[in-house]
């Protein structure tokens, strides 16, 4: 594990991502790997902005170093990854600071590769296994937003999550990325989710309206610990009750 913490390729990957080599005269510039633009509607980004702005990371008046926000949910299929992407986009657009979105949900059915249209290739899992360099991909169209795809976790994702916590990857990304958004695994039925959640300072819990069971949310809250949860984001919120009546109830 210690060799992971000592590997220098993290900084190299970050440097190459943030500071691409200037093109040599007479040659085409070396293109950085870029994702396909994800076209979320403005209202969606605005609601994600509302969510990240509500996360209090430091005491009032204390200087803020980094934002390390984890996005989790009770079970799969609640829109956690979409909201993580939306929050990362909103932060990157608002702050103009380098922002990275890390995919730590190794069991997700809809991964970054599908969402961002990435080529099948190495990712975080391969780096953790020591087989590949860290792959940072620029999230188009923003210049300051990057994604770190999960890659192929294989048959033992729990081991990889354990290696991830031992690798100190997030602390090593902090100097270069002011904003780190981690797409965490769901809390229930995933054994390593509690371990993965330690990567984030504060966590936003995603619940899907009319789908997520209250008991599951309570269990997720218990596993996360109330003090670490910055708030709940209710996804797919489409109440049928008229607004005036909702206010009365």
């Amino acid at each position, binding site marked *: 594990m210690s060799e992971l913490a000592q590997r220098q390729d993290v900084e190299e990957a970050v440097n190459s991502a943030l500071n691409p080599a200037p093109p040599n005269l007479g040659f085409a510039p070396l293109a950085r790997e870029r994702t396909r633009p994800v076209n979320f509607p403005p209202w969606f980004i605005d609601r*994600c902005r509302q969510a990240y702005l509500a996360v209090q990371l430091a005491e009032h008046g204390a200087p803020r170093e980094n934002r390390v926000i984890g996005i989790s949910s009770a079970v799969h299929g609640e829109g956690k990854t979409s909201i993580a992407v939306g929050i990362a986009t909103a932060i990157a657009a608002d702050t103009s600071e380098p922002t990275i979105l890390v995919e730590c949900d190794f069991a997700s059915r809809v991964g970054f590769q599908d969402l961002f249209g990435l080529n099948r290739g190495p990712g975080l899992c391969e780096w953790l296994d020591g087989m590949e360099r860290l792959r940072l991909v620029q999230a188009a169209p923003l210049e300051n937003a990057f994604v770190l795809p999960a890659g192929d976790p294989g048959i033992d994702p729990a081991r990889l999550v354990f290696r991830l916590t031992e690798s100190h990857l997030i602390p090593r990304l902090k100097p270069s990325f002011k904003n780190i958004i981690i797409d965490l695994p769901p809390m229930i039925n995933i054994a390593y989710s509690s371990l993965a959640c330690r990567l984030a300072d504060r966590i*936003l819990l995603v619940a899907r309206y009319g789908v997520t*069971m*209250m008991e599951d*949310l309570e269990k997720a809250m218990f596993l996360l610990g109330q003090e670490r*949860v910055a708030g*709940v984001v209710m996804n797919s*919120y489409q109440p*049928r009750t008229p607004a005036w009546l909702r206010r009365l109830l």
Partner: protein
Amino acid sequence: MFKYVEMLFQHWIRFALLIVVLPAIAGGASLLVFQGKTGSAQVWVDNPSYFGTVSTASGWNQYLTPAQNTVDSLTQLVATQSYYDKLGARLLADHTVANASERDSVLAEVQTQLKISSNGSHLINLSVECPRASICIDVLTTTIAVHRDWLIETEKNQATVASQFYTGQLQLAQQRLTQAVDALNSYTAAHPTPQLQVRPPDPAQDRLQSDVNVSQAQVNTIQDKMQNIQFSMEAAGEIDQTALRVIDPPRVKSGRFTSTTKKLALMIGGGAVVPGLLYLFVLGWLDRTARNPRELETRLGVRVVSTIGNLLSEKAP
């Protein structure tokens, strides 16, 4: 609460059918099925003091108006089995009802539907709701007639009892008068007074003369009373015809929906809402998903920092 309202709006077509359409159909159907008629009559009751010595107001409360007293006696009368026996016999005799079972159902309705109320000091309203107009008319006519018969019978009975009592009293008084006259005659024979001579004061003779006078007065008084009683007995029928005058004879109001019909329609319509509400309750109770941000905040102890609409609907919540 939010959960149930949300369920209501989420499945609004289902609940519109169950809670609005079905009860409306049930209520409308009951309006058609339970149609009826409302019959009414108005009766004027005169004050018994108009009839001099003859009383038509036995048992009346002096602090109530004639209408209130009559309503009281009518209400008690229609609570008796005798009244229903007479009414049933009349309905069958008039062929207003086809058979005994229909008669029984009409009588059962009359028990709850016949309303007697006073309107002012002398006017009485009688109303009844029946399946058919002819039944309403018959019920009201019979009720008034039975009450009148009852009044006449009561008067006659009381007069007969009083007559029997005073006949005995008269015989006694007449015996006493005869005895007093005999005693006076005996005394006068024993103590003759010469003619053309002023009778000296005689206390014994005066006492006997006084006894005769008193006995004669008693006999006269009792005879007067008996004459009055005899008059009452003979005139009771006519007096009760006058005391209880039918101002508005029994008639049936237009319209097919009585208050009972409307009440039944409301009850059935209201009852038809129950399955829908029950279904809503079960749906709401079974739904354990997160829907209400306020409930989430209460149960989890953290704030709902953002509510995000459905991306597929491309519309903000």
